[in-house]
Protein backbone atom coordinates (compact mmCIF):
# COMPACT_ATOMS: atom_id res chain seq x y z
CA UNK A 1 0.00 0.00 0.00
CA UNK A 2 1.73 3.10 -1.19
CA UNK A 3 1.10 6.61 -0.06
CA UNK A 4 2.28 9.47 -2.23
CA UNK A 5 2.62 12.80 -0.53
CA UNK A 6 3.34 16.30 -1.76
CA UNK A 7 4.59 18.42 1.12
CA UNK A 8 4.47 22.20 0.88
CA UNK A 9 5.66 22.28 -2.73
CA UNK A 10 6.42 25.55 -4.51
CA UNK A 11 7.53 25.95 -8.12
CA UNK A 12 8.79 29.18 -9.58
CA UNK A 13 9.60 29.84 -13.22
CA UNK A 14 11.94 32.58 -14.26
CA UNK A 15 10.46 34.64 -17.04
CA UNK A 16 12.90 36.01 -19.55
CA UNK A 17 12.79 39.36 -21.21
CA UNK A 18 11.05 41.18 -18.39
CA UNK A 19 13.52 43.78 -17.30
CA UNK A 20 17.16 43.13 -16.61
CA UNK A 21 16.87 40.56 -13.85
CA UNK A 22 13.82 38.78 -15.16
CA UNK A 23 10.65 38.13 -13.23
CA UNK A 24 9.61 34.99 -11.45
CA UNK A 25 6.24 33.36 -11.86
CA UNK A 26 5.04 31.31 -8.91
CA UNK A 27 3.10 28.55 -10.66
CA UNK A 28 2.59 26.42 -7.55
CA UNK A 29 2.57 27.97 -4.11
CA UNK A 30 2.81 25.82 -1.01
CA UNK A 31 0.67 22.89 -2.16
CA UNK A 32 0.38 19.78 -0.02
CA UNK A 33 -1.65 16.71 -0.82
CA UNK A 34 -1.80 13.02 0.00
CA UNK A 35 -2.71 10.21 -2.39
CA UNK A 36 -3.67 6.91 -0.78
CA UNK A 37 -4.30 3.55 -2.38
CA UNK A 38 -7.90 3.09 -3.45
CA UNK A 39 -8.74 6.76 -3.08
CA UNK A 40 -9.33 9.35 -5.77
CA UNK A 41 -8.40 12.96 -5.18
CA UNK A 42 -9.62 15.58 -7.65
CA UNK A 43 -7.56 18.68 -8.31
CA UNK A 44 -9.88 21.32 -9.73
CA UNK A 45 -9.04 24.73 -11.11
CA UNK A 46 -9.11 26.90 -14.17
CA UNK A 47 -6.45 26.99 -16.87
CA UNK A 48 -3.18 28.35 -15.54
CA UNK A 49 -3.99 27.60 -11.92
CA UNK A 50 -0.97 25.29 -11.61
CA UNK A 51 -2.72 21.92 -11.85
CA UNK A 52 -0.51 20.53 -14.60
CA UNK A 53 2.64 21.81 -12.88
CA UNK A 54 1.64 19.79 -9.83
CA UNK A 55 1.38 16.74 -12.09
CA UNK A 56 4.80 17.42 -13.62
CA UNK A 57 6.36 17.77 -10.19
CA UNK A 58 4.74 14.52 -9.08
CA UNK A 59 6.18 12.79 -12.16
CA UNK A 60 9.65 14.28 -11.59
CA UNK A 61 9.46 16.06 -14.93
CA UNK A 62 9.97 19.33 -13.08
CA UNK A 63 11.91 19.96 -9.91
CA UNK A 64 10.08 21.86 -7.21
CA UNK A 65 11.73 25.11 -6.14
CA UNK A 66 11.04 24.09 -2.56
CA UNK A 67 9.11 21.35 -0.81
CA UNK A 68 9.22 17.57 -1.09
CA UNK A 69 7.66 14.63 -2.87
CA UNK A 70 7.46 11.63 -0.54
CA UNK A 71 6.60 8.05 -1.42
CA UNK A 72 5.76 6.01 1.66
CA UNK A 73 7.32 8.75 3.76
CA UNK A 74 10.68 8.66 1.94
CA UNK A 75 11.99 11.41 -0.35
CA UNK A 76 11.96 10.42 -4.00
CA UNK A 77 15.17 9.65 -5.91
CA UNK A 78 15.94 12.05 -8.71
CA UNK A 79 17.95 9.84 -11.05
CA UNK A 80 19.06 6.35 -11.96
CA UNK A 81 17.57 3.30 -10.33
CA UNK A 82 15.81 5.18 -7.53
CA UNK A 83 13.92 7.26 -10.07
CA UNK A 84 12.97 4.20 -12.08
CA UNK A 85 11.67 2.48 -8.96
CA UNK A 86 9.61 5.55 -8.24
CA UNK A 87 8.19 5.43 -11.74
CA UNK A 88 7.27 1.81 -11.27
CA UNK A 89 5.00 3.01 -8.49
CA UNK A 90 3.71 6.29 -9.89
CA UNK A 91 2.49 6.71 -13.46
CA UNK A 92 0.70 9.36 -15.44
CA UNK A 93 -1.93 9.71 -18.15
CA UNK A 94 -1.33 12.83 -20.22
CA UNK A 95 -3.95 15.30 -21.25
CA UNK A 96 -3.71 15.16 -25.02
CA UNK A 97 -3.84 11.66 -26.53
CA UNK A 98 -3.01 13.14 -29.92
CA UNK A 99 0.35 14.38 -28.59
CA UNK A 100 1.24 11.75 -26.02
CA UNK A 101 1.71 8.87 -28.49
CA UNK A 102 4.67 8.96 -30.85
CA UNK A 103 3.23 9.04 -34.39
CA UNK A 104 6.20 7.03 -35.64
CA UNK A 105 5.68 3.94 -33.48
CA UNK A 106 3.04 1.23 -33.24
CA UNK A 107 0.73 0.82 -30.25
CA UNK A 108 2.69 -2.31 -29.31
CA UNK A 109 5.89 -0.26 -29.04
CA UNK A 110 4.27 2.17 -26.61
CA UNK A 111 3.29 -0.69 -24.31
CA UNK A 112 6.39 -2.87 -24.74
CA UNK A 113 8.84 -0.24 -23.60
CA UNK A 114 7.46 0.30 -20.08
CA UNK A 115 6.93 -3.46 -19.72
CA UNK A 116 10.59 -4.14 -20.49
CA UNK A 117 11.94 -1.13 -18.62
CA UNK A 118 10.22 -2.12 -15.42
CA UNK A 119 10.91 -5.81 -15.82
CA UNK A 120 7.24 -6.81 -16.02
CA UNK A 121 7.98 -9.07 -18.99
CA UNK A 122 11.25 -10.31 -20.47
CA UNK A 123 10.91 -12.86 -23.25
CA UNK A 124 9.25 -11.88 -26.52
CA UNK A 125 6.25 -14.13 -25.85
CA UNK A 126 5.78 -12.71 -22.36
CA UNK A 127 5.88 -9.17 -23.72
CA UNK A 128 3.35 -9.95 -26.42
CA UNK A 129 1.02 -11.63 -23.95
CA UNK A 130 1.28 -8.70 -21.56
CA UNK A 131 0.66 -6.17 -24.34
CA UNK A 132 -2.50 -8.03 -25.33
CA UNK A 133 -3.55 -8.32 -21.71
CA UNK A 134 -3.10 -4.56 -21.19
CA UNK A 135 -5.10 -3.74 -24.32
CA UNK A 136 -7.88 -6.04 -23.16
CA UNK A 137 -7.90 -4.37 -19.75
CA UNK A 138 -8.61 -1.02 -21.40
CA UNK A 139 -11.24 -2.68 -23.66
CA UNK A 140 -9.32 -2.28 -26.91
CA UNK A 141 -10.14 -5.43 -28.82
CA UNK A 142 -9.14 -7.38 -30.80
CA UNK A 143 -5.83 -6.72 -29.06
CA UNK A 144 -3.67 -8.38 -31.72
CA UNK A 145 -5.04 -6.02 -34.37
CA UNK A 146 -4.88 -2.87 -32.27
CA UNK A 147 -1.30 -3.61 -31.20
CA UNK A 148 -0.06 -3.36 -34.79
CA UNK A 149 -1.79 -0.04 -35.47
CA UNK A 150 -0.13 3.36 -35.55
CA UNK A 151 -1.60 6.11 -33.37
CA UNK A 152 -3.06 8.01 -36.33
CA UNK A 153 -5.20 5.01 -37.18
CA UNK A 154 -7.04 5.25 -33.86
CA UNK A 155 -9.67 7.68 -32.61
CA UNK A 156 -9.06 10.08 -29.72
CA UNK A 157 -10.85 7.86 -27.22
CA UNK A 158 -8.94 4.79 -28.38
CA UNK A 159 -5.65 6.64 -28.10
CA UNK A 160 -6.44 7.74 -24.58
CA UNK A 161 -7.15 4.10 -23.71
CA UNK A 162 -3.72 3.23 -25.09
CA UNK A 163 -2.22 5.99 -22.94
CA UNK A 164 -3.98 4.52 -19.90
CA UNK A 165 -2.70 1.05 -20.79
CA UNK A 166 0.82 2.46 -21.04
CA UNK A 167 0.50 4.03 -17.61
CA UNK A 168 -0.71 0.72 -16.20
CA UNK A 169 2.12 -1.28 -17.76
CA UNK A 170 4.61 -0.84 -14.87
CA UNK A 171 1.83 -1.88 -12.46
CA UNK A 172 1.84 1.39 -10.54
CA UNK A 173 0.05 1.97 -7.26
CA UNK A 174 -0.60 5.64 -7.95
CA UNK A 175 -1.95 7.12 -11.17
CA UNK A 176 -1.87 10.82 -12.05
CA UNK A 177 -4.48 11.66 -14.68
CA UNK A 178 -3.96 15.17 -16.06
CA UNK A 179 -7.31 16.19 -17.55
CA UNK A 180 -7.64 12.76 -19.16
CA UNK A 181 -10.85 13.54 -21.03
CA UNK A 182 -10.65 17.25 -21.79
CA UNK A 183 -9.38 16.65 -25.34
CA UNK A 184 -11.99 13.98 -26.06
CA UNK A 185 -15.40 14.18 -27.61
CA UNK A 186 -18.13 14.69 -25.01
CA UNK A 187 -19.87 11.48 -26.05
CA UNK A 188 -16.91 9.27 -25.13
CA UNK A 189 -15.71 11.05 -22.00
CA UNK A 190 -17.88 9.05 -19.66
CA UNK A 191 -16.63 5.78 -21.15
CA UNK A 192 -13.00 6.70 -20.47
CA UNK A 193 -13.78 7.97 -16.96
CA UNK A 194 -15.73 4.83 -16.11
CA UNK A 195 -12.80 2.77 -17.39
CA UNK A 196 -10.45 4.68 -15.08
CA UNK A 197 -12.80 4.11 -12.15
CA UNK A 198 -13.03 0.38 -12.91
CA UNK A 199 -9.27 0.02 -13.22
CA UNK A 200 -8.82 1.90 -9.96
CA UNK A 201 -11.10 -0.54 -8.17
CA UNK A 202 -9.46 -3.57 -9.80
CA UNK A 203 -5.90 -2.57 -8.86
CA UNK A 204 -6.64 -0.52 -5.75
CA UNK A 205 -4.93 2.50 -7.30
CA UNK A 206 -4.53 5.89 -5.75
CA UNK A 207 -5.64 8.39 -8.38
CA UNK A 208 -5.04 12.11 -8.72
CA UNK A 209 -7.76 13.28 -11.10
CA UNK A 210 -6.87 16.71 -12.46
CA UNK A 211 -9.80 18.45 -14.10
CA UNK A 212 -11.73 21.67 -14.46
CA UNK A 213 -15.04 19.87 -14.44
CA UNK A 214 -16.61 19.90 -10.98
CA UNK A 215 -19.42 17.52 -11.92
CA UNK A 216 -17.12 14.61 -12.83
CA UNK A 217 -14.81 15.53 -9.95
CA UNK A 218 -17.67 15.03 -7.54
CA UNK A 219 -18.82 11.84 -9.18
CA UNK A 220 -15.45 10.11 -9.41
CA UNK A 221 -13.46 11.31 -6.43
CA UNK A 222 -13.48 11.08 -2.67
CA UNK A 223 -11.78 14.37 -2.00
CA UNK A 224 -11.66 17.64 -3.93
CA UNK A 225 -8.90 20.24 -3.88
CA UNK A 226 -9.65 23.57 -5.53
CA UNK A 227 -6.66 25.47 -6.90
CA UNK A 228 -6.45 29.15 -7.76
CA UNK A 229 -3.25 30.90 -8.88
CA UNK A 230 -1.05 28.10 -7.62
CA UNK A 231 -2.64 27.86 -4.19
CA UNK A 232 -5.11 25.35 -2.82
CA UNK A 233 -8.00 27.53 -1.71
CA UNK A 234 -10.37 24.82 -0.59
CA UNK A 235 -10.19 21.13 0.20
CA UNK A 236 -12.50 18.55 1.64
CA UNK A 237 -14.69 15.53 0.95
CA UNK A 238 -16.30 15.80 -2.48
CA UNK A 239 -19.90 16.21 -1.39
CA UNK A 240 -19.02 18.77 1.24
CA UNK A 241 -17.06 20.92 -1.24
CA UNK A 242 -19.83 20.78 -3.83
CA UNK A 243 -22.83 21.19 -1.54
CA UNK A 244 -21.31 23.61 0.94
CA UNK A 245 -18.50 25.55 -0.76
CA UNK A 246 -16.58 27.81 1.61
CA UNK A 247 -14.37 29.80 -0.72
CA UNK A 248 -15.95 32.27 -3.10
CA UNK A 249 -13.90 30.92 -6.01
CA UNK A 250 -15.40 27.47 -5.52
CA UNK A 251 -18.84 29.07 -5.54
CA UNK A 252 -17.91 30.86 -8.76
CA UNK A 253 -16.83 27.57 -10.35
CA UNK A 254 -20.05 25.90 -9.24
CA UNK A 255 -22.16 28.70 -10.66
CA UNK A 256 -20.28 28.45 -13.95
CA UNK A 257 -20.97 24.75 -14.38
CA UNK A 258 -24.34 23.74 -15.78
CA UNK A 259 -26.68 22.35 -13.16
CA UNK A 260 -30.15 21.26 -14.31
CA UNK A 261 -31.48 20.78 -10.75
CA UNK A 262 -30.74 24.36 -9.79
CA UNK A 263 -32.68 25.70 -12.74
CA UNK A 264 -35.71 23.68 -11.72
CA UNK A 265 -35.51 24.96 -8.18
CA UNK A 266 -35.56 28.65 -9.05
Amino acid at each position, binding site marked *: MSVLELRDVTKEYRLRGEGLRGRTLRAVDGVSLVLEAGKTVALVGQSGSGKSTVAKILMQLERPTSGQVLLDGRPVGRRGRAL*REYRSAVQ*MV*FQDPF*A*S*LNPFHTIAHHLER*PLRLHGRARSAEDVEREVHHLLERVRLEPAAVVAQR*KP*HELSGGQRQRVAIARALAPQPSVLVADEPVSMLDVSIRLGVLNLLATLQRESDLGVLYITHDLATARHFSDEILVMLDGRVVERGPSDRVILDPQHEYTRLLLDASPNPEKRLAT
Partner: protein
Amino acid sequence: MTTTATDPDVVARALPEGRGRRRRGLRLPSPKLGVGLAICGLIALFGLVGPLVVGDPDAVDNVGLAPPGGGYLLGTTQTGQDVFAQLAWATRGSLVIGLVVGLLAVGLAAVFGVIGAYAGGWVDEGFSLFSNVMLVIPGLPLIIVISSYVADKSIWLIALVLALTSWAGGARVLRGVTLSLRSRDYVSASRVSGERTWRILLVEILPNLVPLLASLFIFAVIGAILGEAGLAFIGLGASGSWTWGTMLFWAGNGLALRLGALWWFVPPGLMIALFGAGLAMINFAIDEIIDPKLRLQTRAARRRWRRPSDVGSSGGAGARA
Protein backbone atom coordinates in the same frame (compact mmCIF):
# COMPACT_ATOMS: atom_id res chain seq x y z
CA MET B 1 -23.76 12.12 -58.90
CA THR B 2 -22.59 8.59 -59.46
CA THR B 3 -18.94 9.55 -59.63
CA THR B 4 -18.89 10.28 -55.90
CA ALA B 5 -19.64 6.64 -55.15
CA THR B 6 -16.69 5.42 -57.18
CA ASP B 7 -14.29 8.11 -55.99
CA PRO B 8 -11.59 6.06 -54.24
CA ASP B 9 -11.17 8.61 -51.49
CA VAL B 10 -14.83 8.55 -50.55
CA VAL B 11 -14.80 4.78 -50.41
CA ALA B 12 -11.64 4.82 -48.35
CA ARG B 13 -13.17 7.27 -45.90
CA ALA B 14 -16.17 5.04 -45.45
CA LEU B 15 -13.92 2.05 -44.66
CA PRO B 16 -11.25 3.28 -42.28
CA GLU B 17 -10.21 -0.26 -41.38
CA GLY B 18 -6.94 -1.21 -42.99
CA ARG B 19 -7.14 1.44 -45.65
CA GLY B 20 -3.61 2.75 -45.13
CA ARG B 21 -2.32 -0.80 -45.12
CA ARG B 22 -3.62 -1.77 -48.52
CA ARG B 23 -2.35 1.36 -50.21
CA ARG B 24 1.06 1.24 -48.62
CA GLY B 25 1.68 -2.37 -49.54
CA LEU B 26 0.76 -2.42 -53.19
CA ARG B 27 2.18 0.55 -55.03
CA LEU B 28 4.74 3.30 -54.79
CA PRO B 29 3.40 6.01 -52.53
CA SER B 30 3.92 8.65 -55.16
CA PRO B 31 4.97 8.79 -58.82
CA LYS B 32 7.54 11.43 -57.89
CA LEU B 33 9.47 8.85 -55.94
CA GLY B 34 9.52 6.46 -58.88
CA VAL B 35 10.73 9.07 -61.35
CA GLY B 36 13.31 10.52 -58.94
CA LEU B 37 14.66 7.10 -58.00
CA ALA B 38 14.83 6.07 -61.66
CA ILE B 39 16.81 9.17 -62.67
CA CYS B 40 19.23 9.02 -59.74
CA GLY B 41 19.51 5.23 -59.98
CA LEU B 42 20.47 5.33 -63.64
CA ILE B 43 23.01 8.07 -63.05
CA ALA B 44 24.47 6.22 -60.07
CA LEU B 45 24.62 3.01 -62.08
CA PHE B 46 26.42 4.87 -64.86
CA GLY B 47 28.91 6.20 -62.30
CA LEU B 48 29.45 2.72 -60.90
CA VAL B 49 29.67 0.66 -64.08
CA GLY B 50 30.68 3.27 -66.66
CA PRO B 51 34.33 3.67 -65.65
CA LEU B 52 34.79 -0.12 -65.87
CA VAL B 53 33.79 -0.35 -69.52
CA VAL B 54 35.10 2.87 -71.06
CA GLY B 55 38.66 3.59 -72.12
CA ASP B 56 41.16 5.96 -70.54
CA PRO B 57 39.56 9.42 -70.26
CA ASP B 58 42.97 11.08 -70.45
CA ALA B 59 44.12 9.28 -73.61
CA VAL B 60 44.85 11.74 -76.41
CA ASP B 61 43.90 11.02 -80.01
CA ASN B 62 44.42 12.69 -83.38
CA VAL B 63 40.72 13.24 -83.99
CA GLY B 64 40.09 16.45 -82.06
CA LEU B 65 36.60 17.90 -81.69
CA ALA B 66 34.94 15.02 -83.49
CA PRO B 67 31.14 15.14 -83.19
CA PRO B 68 29.28 12.14 -81.72
CA GLY B 69 29.39 8.95 -83.72
CA GLY B 70 32.21 7.31 -85.60
CA GLY B 71 33.90 5.37 -82.81
CA TYR B 72 33.22 7.96 -80.10
CA LEU B 73 29.73 7.79 -78.59
CA LEU B 74 29.73 11.40 -77.45
CA GLY B 75 32.49 12.71 -79.69
CA THR B 76 35.90 13.96 -78.59
CA THR B 77 37.42 17.01 -76.98
CA GLN B 78 39.84 19.43 -78.53
CA THR B 79 42.72 17.09 -77.78
CA GLY B 80 40.85 14.04 -78.98
CA GLN B 81 39.88 12.65 -75.57
CA ASP B 82 36.76 10.50 -75.40
CA VAL B 83 33.91 12.63 -73.93
CA PHE B 84 31.89 9.54 -73.00
CA ALA B 85 34.80 8.08 -71.04
CA GLN B 86 35.30 11.40 -69.31
CA LEU B 87 31.61 11.59 -68.48
CA ALA B 88 31.67 8.14 -66.90
CA TRP B 89 34.61 8.99 -64.66
CA ALA B 90 33.23 12.47 -63.92
CA THR B 91 29.91 10.95 -62.83
CA ARG B 92 31.75 8.72 -60.38
CA GLY B 93 33.82 11.61 -59.05
CA SER B 94 30.88 13.95 -58.58
CA LEU B 95 28.78 11.28 -56.91
CA VAL B 96 31.57 10.43 -54.48
CA ILE B 97 31.91 14.08 -53.52
CA GLY B 98 28.14 14.44 -53.15
CA LEU B 99 27.85 11.32 -51.02
CA VAL B 100 30.77 12.10 -48.74
CA VAL B 101 29.70 15.70 -48.21
CA GLY B 102 26.07 14.69 -47.69
CA LEU B 103 26.91 12.13 -45.01
CA LEU B 104 29.43 14.34 -43.22
CA ALA B 105 27.22 17.43 -43.30
CA VAL B 106 24.12 15.63 -42.03
CA GLY B 107 26.13 13.84 -39.35
CA LEU B 108 27.63 17.09 -38.09
CA ALA B 109 24.29 18.88 -38.28
CA ALA B 110 22.60 16.09 -36.30
CA VAL B 111 25.26 16.03 -33.59
CA PHE B 112 25.33 19.79 -33.08
CA GLY B 113 21.64 20.47 -33.69
CA VAL B 114 19.85 17.58 -32.01
CA ILE B 115 22.12 16.93 -29.04
CA GLY B 116 22.45 20.62 -28.24
CA ALA B 117 18.72 21.23 -28.35
CA TYR B 118 17.87 18.17 -26.26
CA ALA B 119 20.52 18.78 -23.64
CA GLY B 120 19.64 22.47 -23.28
CA GLY B 121 21.46 24.89 -21.03
CA TRP B 122 25.17 25.53 -21.58
CA VAL B 123 25.60 22.68 -24.06
CA ASP B 124 22.92 24.22 -26.24
CA GLU B 125 24.42 27.71 -25.92
CA GLY B 126 27.87 26.43 -26.86
CA PHE B 127 26.71 24.29 -29.75
CA SER B 128 24.55 26.98 -31.27
CA LEU B 129 27.30 29.56 -30.89
CA PHE B 130 29.63 27.21 -32.75
CA SER B 131 27.03 26.56 -35.47
CA ASN B 132 26.48 30.28 -35.88
CA VAL B 133 30.20 30.88 -36.31
CA MET B 134 30.42 28.07 -38.87
CA LEU B 135 27.35 29.41 -40.62
CA VAL B 136 29.05 32.65 -41.58
CA ILE B 137 32.25 31.05 -42.86
CA PRO B 138 31.79 31.09 -46.65
CA GLY B 139 32.75 27.88 -48.41
CA LEU B 140 34.08 28.98 -51.78
CA PRO B 141 36.43 31.72 -50.51
CA LEU B 142 37.72 29.31 -47.84
CA ILE B 143 38.62 26.77 -50.50
CA ILE B 144 40.27 29.46 -52.61
CA VAL B 145 42.39 30.34 -49.58
CA ILE B 146 43.17 26.71 -48.83
CA SER B 147 44.01 25.98 -52.46
CA SER B 148 46.69 28.63 -52.39
CA TYR B 149 48.39 26.76 -49.53
CA VAL B 150 47.84 23.15 -50.54
CA ALA B 151 49.58 22.16 -53.73
CA ASP B 152 47.88 18.82 -54.29
CA LYS B 153 44.18 19.07 -53.56
CA SER B 154 42.62 15.63 -53.45
CA ILE B 155 38.94 14.99 -53.99
CA TRP B 156 38.68 14.18 -50.25
CA LEU B 157 40.06 17.54 -49.19
CA ILE B 158 37.52 19.33 -51.36
CA ALA B 159 34.75 17.15 -49.92
CA LEU B 160 35.91 17.82 -46.35
CA VAL B 161 35.98 21.57 -46.79
CA LEU B 162 32.60 21.56 -48.53
CA ALA B 163 31.15 19.49 -45.66
CA LEU B 164 32.68 21.66 -42.95
CA THR B 165 31.23 24.79 -44.50
CA SER B 166 27.77 23.44 -45.26
CA TRP B 167 26.47 21.69 -42.13
CA ALA B 168 25.70 24.71 -39.96
CA GLY B 169 22.44 25.72 -41.63
CA GLY B 170 21.10 22.21 -41.19
CA ALA B 171 22.14 22.19 -37.54
CA ARG B 172 20.08 25.29 -36.90
CA VAL B 173 17.02 23.80 -38.58
CA LEU B 174 17.42 20.55 -36.63
CA ARG B 175 17.86 22.49 -33.39
CA GLY B 176 14.60 24.32 -33.96
CA VAL B 177 12.64 21.16 -34.71
CA THR B 178 14.22 19.25 -31.83
CA LEU B 179 13.32 22.05 -29.43
CA SER B 180 9.71 21.61 -30.45
CA LEU B 181 9.88 17.79 -30.36
CA ARG B 182 11.47 17.57 -26.91
CA SER B 183 8.57 19.40 -25.35
CA ARG B 184 6.02 17.06 -26.96
CA ASP B 185 3.96 14.97 -24.61
CA TYR B 186 5.22 11.70 -26.04
CA VAL B 187 8.77 12.61 -25.06
CA SER B 188 7.60 13.43 -21.53
CA ALA B 189 5.64 10.18 -21.57
CA SER B 190 8.78 8.21 -22.45
CA ARG B 191 10.61 9.90 -19.61
CA VAL B 192 7.76 8.97 -17.29
CA SER B 193 8.05 5.40 -18.57
CA GLY B 194 11.67 5.45 -17.41
CA GLU B 195 13.31 5.57 -20.84
CA ARG B 196 16.99 6.55 -20.93
CA THR B 197 18.05 9.83 -22.53
CA TRP B 198 20.00 8.34 -25.44
CA ARG B 199 17.10 6.01 -26.24
CA ILE B 200 14.64 8.90 -26.21
CA LEU B 201 16.92 10.72 -28.64
CA LEU B 202 17.48 7.75 -30.95
CA VAL B 203 14.14 5.96 -30.81
CA GLU B 204 11.55 8.59 -29.99
CA ILE B 205 12.94 11.82 -31.46
CA LEU B 206 15.24 10.80 -34.32
CA PRO B 207 12.63 8.88 -36.38
CA ASN B 208 10.51 12.01 -36.41
CA LEU B 209 13.48 13.90 -37.81
CA VAL B 210 13.99 11.43 -40.67
CA PRO B 211 12.17 13.48 -43.31
CA LEU B 212 14.17 16.51 -42.30
CA LEU B 213 17.46 14.59 -42.23
CA ALA B 214 16.67 13.10 -45.63
CA SER B 215 15.92 16.47 -47.14
CA LEU B 216 19.01 17.98 -45.51
CA PHE B 217 21.06 15.12 -46.93
CA ILE B 218 19.65 15.57 -50.39
CA PHE B 219 20.18 19.32 -50.33
CA ALA B 220 23.72 18.79 -49.06
CA VAL B 221 24.40 16.42 -51.95
CA ILE B 222 23.02 18.85 -54.52
CA GLY B 223 24.89 21.71 -52.87
CA ALA B 224 28.15 19.78 -52.80
CA ILE B 225 27.93 18.77 -56.45
CA LEU B 226 27.12 22.33 -57.48
CA GLY B 227 29.78 23.75 -55.17
CA GLU B 228 32.40 21.41 -56.51
CA ALA B 229 31.35 22.20 -60.07
CA GLY B 230 31.65 25.90 -59.31
CA LEU B 231 35.09 25.45 -57.79
CA ALA B 232 36.28 23.26 -60.62
CA PHE B 233 34.92 25.67 -63.19
CA ILE B 234 37.10 28.47 -61.87
CA GLY B 235 40.02 26.08 -61.88
CA LEU B 236 40.15 25.22 -58.17
CA GLY B 237 38.80 21.69 -58.39
CA ALA B 238 40.44 18.51 -57.23
CA SER B 239 43.64 17.98 -59.14
CA GLY B 240 44.01 14.78 -61.12
CA SER B 241 40.42 13.52 -60.88
CA TRP B 242 37.38 13.90 -63.12
CA THR B 243 34.13 15.48 -62.01
CA TRP B 244 31.31 17.13 -63.93
CA GLY B 245 32.84 20.42 -62.85
CA THR B 246 36.29 19.66 -64.23
CA MET B 247 34.73 18.56 -67.50
CA LEU B 248 32.97 21.91 -67.75
CA PHE B 249 36.24 23.63 -66.83
CA TRP B 250 38.15 21.94 -69.65
CA ALA B 251 35.28 22.57 -72.05
CA GLY B 252 35.30 26.24 -71.15
CA ASN B 253 39.07 26.28 -71.40
CA GLY B 254 38.93 24.69 -74.84
CA LEU B 255 36.42 27.27 -76.09
CA ALA B 256 33.82 24.54 -76.64
CA LEU B 257 31.02 27.09 -76.68
CA ARG B 258 32.63 29.28 -79.34
CA LEU B 259 33.56 26.27 -81.46
CA GLY B 260 29.99 24.97 -81.18
CA ALA B 261 31.10 21.67 -79.60
CA LEU B 262 27.76 20.98 -77.94
CA TRP B 263 28.67 17.33 -77.25
CA TRP B 264 31.50 18.48 -75.00
CA PHE B 265 29.74 20.76 -72.49
CA VAL B 266 26.09 19.70 -72.71
CA PRO B 267 26.50 16.16 -71.24
CA PRO B 268 28.08 17.21 -67.91
CA GLY B 269 25.70 20.18 -67.59
CA LEU B 270 22.71 17.97 -68.31
CA MET B 271 23.90 15.40 -65.78
CA ILE B 272 24.08 18.04 -63.05
CA ALA B 273 20.60 19.29 -63.89
CA LEU B 274 19.08 15.79 -64.14
CA PHE B 275 20.66 14.56 -60.94
CA GLY B 276 19.52 17.67 -59.08
CA ALA B 277 15.97 17.27 -60.39
CA GLY B 278 15.91 13.58 -59.48
CA LEU B 279 17.07 14.24 -55.93
CA ALA B 280 14.52 17.03 -55.53
CA MET B 281 11.73 14.66 -56.57
CA ILE B 282 12.88 12.02 -54.09
CA ASN B 283 12.92 14.76 -51.49
CA PHE B 284 9.28 15.72 -52.08
CA ALA B 285 8.24 12.08 -52.03
CA ILE B 286 10.04 11.39 -48.74
CA ASP B 287 8.25 14.32 -47.15
CA GLU B 288 4.93 12.87 -48.20
CA ILE B 289 5.67 9.32 -47.06
CA ILE B 290 6.81 10.24 -43.60
CA ASP B 291 4.26 12.94 -42.92
CA PRO B 292 0.89 11.44 -43.83
CA LYS B 293 -0.75 14.82 -43.24
CA LEU B 294 1.28 16.26 -46.10
CA ARG B 295 0.15 13.44 -48.37
CA LEU B 296 -3.46 14.18 -47.52
CA GLN B 297 -2.80 17.82 -48.29
CA THR B 298 -1.31 16.91 -51.66
CA ARG B 299 -4.27 14.70 -52.39
CA ALA B 300 -6.71 17.40 -51.40
CA ALA B 301 -4.90 19.93 -53.57
CA ARG B 302 -4.94 17.53 -56.49
CA ARG B 303 -8.66 16.98 -56.01
CA ARG B 304 -9.18 20.70 -55.99
CA TRP B 305 -7.36 21.01 -59.33
CA ARG B 306 -9.39 18.20 -60.78
CA ARG B 307 -12.83 19.29 -59.58
CA PRO B 308 -13.34 22.34 -61.81
CA SER B 309 -12.32 20.47 -64.96
CA ASP B 310 -14.57 17.55 -64.00
CA VAL B 311 -17.53 19.88 -63.80
CA GLY B 312 -16.70 21.36 -67.16
CA SER B 313 -16.26 18.12 -69.09
CA SER B 314 -17.68 15.38 -66.90
CA GLY B 315 -18.18 13.10 -69.89
CA GLY B 316 -14.57 13.01 -71.07
CA ALA B 317 -12.93 13.13 -67.64
CA GLY B 318 -12.81 9.38 -67.13
CA ALA B 319 -11.54 8.63 -70.64
CA ARG B 320 -8.79 11.21 -70.35
CA ALA B 321 -7.43 9.81 -67.13
